[in-house]
């Protein structure tokens, strides 16, 4: 016996289990945390974005109002407009309606009723150019169809805006 430690494999195995097990456990915990945080953010996003039913309600109510405005215009127009000119006027009313309501208030009358509003994708106030983009993109006939495949319309995505539910609760949840 020259002082060499005999055996000791149990200590070797124990140390390896502690080191490798500890690192594995931490790795699994990290992945789990990453998944949880990602899910939490996605949930909040889903929760805060206005759903399709609200968006369809906005669409219908606003178009009824715009229809009434166009009808009034026709009634008030002393000169009988030709079809094309009438169409241009109707489009102008359409643009002015959205521009005025969403630029100044962030909401149209329909959005007041459904408790929703327009924001940028980061939650800020949309600027007039974004509102104009939204409005013009709405004129593309197939735009409403985008809601069949997504909670956001093309006019939202391309103008980098969104419609969110406005709530009076301004609490600051923390993770």
């Amino acid at each position: 016996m020259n002082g060499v430690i005999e055996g000791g494999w149990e200590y070797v195995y124990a140390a390896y289990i502690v080191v490798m097990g500890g690192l594995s456990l931490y790795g699994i915990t990290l992945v789990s945390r990453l998944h949880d945080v990602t899910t939490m953010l996605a949930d909040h996003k889903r929760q805060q974005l206005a759903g399709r039913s609200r968006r369809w309600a906005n669409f219908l109510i606003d178009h009824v109002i715009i229809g009434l405005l166009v009808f009034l215009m026709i009634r008030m127009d002393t000169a009988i407009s030709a079809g094309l000119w009438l169409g241009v006027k109707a489009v102008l009313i359409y643009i002015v309606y959205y521009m005025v309501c969403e630029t100044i208030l962030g909401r149209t009358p329909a959005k007041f009723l459904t408790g929703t509003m327009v924001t940028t994708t980061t939650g800020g106030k949309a600027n007039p150019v974004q509102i104009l983009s939204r409005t013009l993109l709405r004129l593309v006939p197939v735009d409403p169809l985008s809601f069949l495949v997504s909670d956001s319309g093309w006019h939202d995505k391309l103008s980098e805006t969104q419609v969110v539910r406005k709530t009076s609760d301004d609490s600051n949840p923390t993770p």
Partner: protein
Amino acid sequence: MFNRTDLIFLFLGLALVIFGSYWGLVVAPPEEFMGDVYRVLYAHVPAGWTTFIAYTVSFVASTTYLLRSSERADRMAEASAEVGIVFNIVLLISGAIWARPTWGIWWTWDPRLTSAAIMFFMYVGYLALRAFVDEPEKRATWAAVVAILIFVNIPIVWYSVKWWNTIHQLQSSPKTIPNSDMKLALRCNAFAFLAFFIFFVRVRMRIAALLRKYEGEYDEPPPRAEPTISGGVA
């Protein structure tokens, strides 16, 4: 969830640790005096090196934050400190396991062991400080100052075996090991742990970025006061 770089580091670490462990446990010969117990050091020593690397990265990132107010640097400081604590824990426990058959005791208040334990508690305190401060900028600044202050202990831990009369052996390094199989096992595990460290830090930084995004959306006032939105959506 993971990008390609993450997976490269993860699988590189796994491949190296499997090879290194096999080499250390099967191929490398027993050490002259410590016998097979020496094999504990193939895991313990790389854990120690990685701990030092992690805390050094945290120190550098904290300094960078104070100089440049870089949010990314703050996230890196936090992530490195947390990952460093994990390596520090396995370092202390595996060290105690090695000490039992070698010194006959699990723990002693030796300068190296004591300073390593203090290092661990200092970084736990650092993370606790981060948890207690809600305001992101204040938290990052205070944490950076603390990370720089507590880094003073790292050279003390490293040189403790030289400065004081200690039961702990001098730092192990490939230069101090005569056998090439032993060197290979140690090096493989060291690079494996380094790869794991990078993987962990990358994932932890991503978690921090997501949490900060969440905080930003819910804690910061919206760009306009009225009407308020409950949680802007990104």
